[in-house]
């Protein structure tokens, strides 16, 4: 499960017609409900901008789950043992399930599944930039579970308290299932780090390649994240991007040390006064480039989704035809 604070430039672009009916009084009552920690449910009145923000965030989250099956699926047939293979299969199946929970949550806001899938396949929707990086070795499967899922969990735990009920409930289910993902990844890393010099080098290489992209998963720095404030006021978000990133770094540095691996950041240092690990500067130009489609695997990932959709079309057609055929006599008998 991989939520990411992507750029939300059009969140506050006024949809003047629909927002015209939003009197200050109504907006104030809505805000009061949110502040009283009441959950907003699908049929409740909500500001258009709140609805739009949620549709985009939840669907991007869903797309990320679905696309995220690609990098890991790459290693299922080459897993080094049956135990690892079974775990990886179960994990990838979970990602698919998480995508489905999230699509269902987005659909409660009045957008159809078909429309959401279409947005992904035509490249109009975004997904987490992390999945546009390639999985070059088996150690990458360890690093993804440990770091990518670790970062995702940091992001998702606060989302369990999101003001929108269906999203919060989906996240609770996801978080329950997710902790095995991170543990299986770390176990792979431990095994490699206790292995031969070549295995340790493979683990280090994976950490070197994934560390910075994982830090980018938390989204742009707070100073540049223009719509973070509104999402915080609506209690969609509970922590800022930088706040979550810091929590992740603090939790992860000691885990890397236990493995005997070096974090690829010469500026990394512990700030005694603040009690935090401070990283060097993050290359945000790379983040924007990958998000805009310039990552190593962007094209491959979307092509894989389009192919899957196309190859499955006959199954969906057959299912619909079968259902129609069997529904007809039942109606006649009734």
């Amino acid at each position, binding site marked *: 499960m991989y939520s990411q604070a992507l750029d939300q430039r059009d969140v506050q672009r006024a949809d003047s017609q629909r927002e015209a009916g939003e009197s200050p009084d109504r907006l104030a009552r809505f805000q009061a409900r949110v502040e009283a920690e009441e959950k907003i449910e699908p049929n409740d009145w909500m500001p258009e901008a709140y609805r739009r923000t949620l549709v985009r965030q939840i669907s991007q989250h869903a797309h990320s789950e679905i696309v995220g099956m690609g990098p890991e699926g790459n290693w299922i047939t080459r897993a080094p043992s049956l135990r690892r293979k079974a775990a990886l299969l179960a994990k990838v199946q979970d990602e698919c399930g998480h995508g489905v*929970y999230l699509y*269902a949550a987005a659909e409660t806001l009045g957008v159809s599944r078909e429309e959401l899938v*279409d947005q992904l396949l035509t490249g109009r929707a975004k997904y987490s930039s992390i999945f546009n990086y390639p999985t070059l070795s088996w150690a990458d499967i360890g690093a993804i579970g440990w770091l990518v899922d670790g970062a995702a969990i940091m992001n998702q735990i606060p989302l369990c308290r999101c003001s929108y009920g269906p999203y919060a*409930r989906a996240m609770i289910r996801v978080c329950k299932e997710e902790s095995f993902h991170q543990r299986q990844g770390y176990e792979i890393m431990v095994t490699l780090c206790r292995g031969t010099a070549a295995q340790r080098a493979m683990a280090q290489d994976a950490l070197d390649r994934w560390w910075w992209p994982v830090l980018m998963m938390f989204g742009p720095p707070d100073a540049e994240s223009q719509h973070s404030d509104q999402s915080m006021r609506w209690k969609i978000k509970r922590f800022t991007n930088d706040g979550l990133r810091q929590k992740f770094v603090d939790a992860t540095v000691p885990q890397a040390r236990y493995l005997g691996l070096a974090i690829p950041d010469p500026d990394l240092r512990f700030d005694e006064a603040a009690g935090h690990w401070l990283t060097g500067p993050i290359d945000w130009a790379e983040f924007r480039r990958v998000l805009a489609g310039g990552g190593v695997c962007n094209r491959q990932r979307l092509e894989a989704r389009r192919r899957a959709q196309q190859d499955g079309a006959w199954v969906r057609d057959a299912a619909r035809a079968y259902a129609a055929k069997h529904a007809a006599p039942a109606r006649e008998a009734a």
Partner: protein
Amino acid sequence: MTEAPMRLWEVFIRSRNGLAHQHAGSIHAADAEMALQAARDTYTRRGEGLSIWVVPSAAITASDPGDKDALFESGASKPYRHPTFYTVPDEVGHM
């Protein structure tokens, strides 16, 4: 090109014998049998259930959130429907 929509179903799962079925989420499927299969794959990967119901979402009639006060407010103003409304002398013990 957007595809024709698949029917939407609501999924209810009974987690243990003796408990009621509870809403778990929704699923898209062409028919009831496929909906059961999809519900099983999606909502019971870790032994969460002993029984599944699937119901076409369109078959559910829901109350309007706008009627919330009219429907439920009267319940809040009738404290005499709760046991704590009544006093029983201490000497009588637990009742």
